[in-house]
């Protein structure tokens, strides 16, 4: 295949766009381990800032991880059965419900948080507990779990599987847990990765919902950008990247091998 100037021009633009994305990431990662950013890398490398971040913000990092796990549990327990009903019983009512379910993703997080605050902000102990933030995260991530599971469920021949299991004497819950759920596992896994990644990184909602005692990782990040020295903000960002990169890479790997060439026919929602 001969490659003329248009190929190289487009490649150039692609690389340029990549640099635009990657350069700041690399810069902030480096700044997080540099002794003094204002003097540059020549001032030497250190892990001091990372330790300092841990001292200052360990609470918020751990809370984020805890929230992500809790969010995953809730969205899986509530979302997988929902996906099953939406695929198995597609009627006007369930479709309307699906529309409502995805609404929290369509409207800005700030508006959603405001609604939660106006409704439940008065319940003191509830307002100041981590459960309050969890609710916001569940609303925001549930559609991703449901969509991901439903996509896999509608691709498998659920009717045949269920009839087969039923003819062998399996009751509904037995069928659901031992036939449907294992078959839908790839969708659950993809959804789970999405839910955890989004929950760890959620800021718009969380910034409104948090209290001084319930700060999450991104809330702490915003705090460090505003009031700490550049190295600390960078080191904190580096910790965030280290947490989130494996999840992103796992998501890309999960999205790729199964469908390789036919990847085309799938909308990006599986990515």
């Amino acid at each position, binding site marked *: 295949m001969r490659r003329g100037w248009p190929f190289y021009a487009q490649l150039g633009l692609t690389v340029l766009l990549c640099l635009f994305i990657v350069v700041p990431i690399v810069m902030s990662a480096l700044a997080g381990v540099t002794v003094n950013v204002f003097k540059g890398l020549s001032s030497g490398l250190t892990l001091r800032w990372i330790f300092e971040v841990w001292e200052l913000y360990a609470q918020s990092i751990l809370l984020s991880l805890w929230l992500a796990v809790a969010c995953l549990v809730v969205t899986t327990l*509530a979302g997988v059965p929902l996906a099953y009903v939406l695929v198995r019983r597609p009627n006007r009512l369930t479709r309307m419900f699906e529309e409502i379910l995805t609404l929290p993703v369509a409207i800005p997080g*700030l508006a959603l948080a405001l609604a939660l605050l106006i409704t439940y902000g008065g319940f003191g102990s509830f307002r100041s507990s981590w459960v309050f933030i969890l609710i916001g995260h569940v609303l925001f991530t549930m559609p991703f779990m449901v969509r991901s599971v439903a996509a896999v469920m509608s691709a498998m021949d659920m009717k045949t599987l269920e009839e087969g299991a039923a003819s062998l004497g399996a009751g509904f819950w037995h069928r659901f847990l031992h036939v449907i759920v294992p078959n839908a596992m790839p969708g659950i896994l993809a959804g789970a990765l999405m839910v955890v990644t989004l929950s760890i990184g959620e800021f718009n909602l969380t910034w409104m919902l948090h209290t001084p005692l319930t700060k999450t990782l*991104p809330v702490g990040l915003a705090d460090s950008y505003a009031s700490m020295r550049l190295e600390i903000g960078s080191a904190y960002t580096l910790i965030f990247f280290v947490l989130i990169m494996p999840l992103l890479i796992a998501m890309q790997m999960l999205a790729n091998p199964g469908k390789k060439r036919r990847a085309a026919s799938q909308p990006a929602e599986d990515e």
Partner: protein
Amino acid sequence: MALQNLGEGRSRPSFSRYFGMSRSAMASPATFMALMAPGVAIVAAFFLIPLVLVAAEVANGPDGWATYLVILTNARYFESLVQTLLMSAGVTVVALILCGIVGMFLVRNRFSGRSVLIGLLTLPLSFPGTVVGFMVIMLAGRQGAVGSISNALIGEKIVFAYEIAGLFIGYLYFSIPRVILAVMASAEKLDPQLEEAARSLGAPRWRVVRDVILPGLMPGLISSGAICFATAMGAFGTAFTLATDIDVLPMVIYTEFTRNANIAVAAALSIALGLITWLCLSAVRFLVGEKADLAARGGA
């Protein structure tokens, strides 16, 4: 597969008749209800009810129900709305052009390093808005890359992170992954033979792009544009971190709510903002017929 034969060959117990069901493998309506119950309860309690209460809250404002119109009648809010709309539209156009070219290129060409490029381009997909803001500071802030380069070249530090240009760059930063994924998905559906045919019939390159590639990509461009626009309209973290002097609508809502305790106005503005993004996504779904892809959103 073995199960399938069993299911058809065997005479099944006829309990389904007693329950008035056509297929024994179908769960009863009660079971369906039980399956939906947790999800419905969560959505009802923490989304539908708050939504109704917020809509009612607006009436407690200084002007009663007229508070709903505050976004149009108050000069400051209206100006912020216009600025946010322009900003989001501008970012959408630029992102579509850049990602249209790059996405099409990545789909049509196979070369070593291609998947790495795709991986890198989609990296910021789930970065929170604050981190995107910080990335802009890294790029164009006082210690940023652009500043250092310009300092070395012309002896002057160019800093634009905290101006409207910085905000624009930030919005572009989080839009690129979303738009590129959507463009690539629809570019894969295009038939390369059509372009081949046009070319062999003597069409110059720009005609192939205008008459073959663009119309084919259009549904994908429209739906990814809608996602990009909606995300930009609601983006809060980036503006919050950069603390620019222009007031995007989410920042105005935030200030009204927290600093001025103007809850009714904040609620009215939120509803207006939510309506705009929701309408935008729904309109596209209606027009293009394909689901505006929510999963390409996230963070920001």
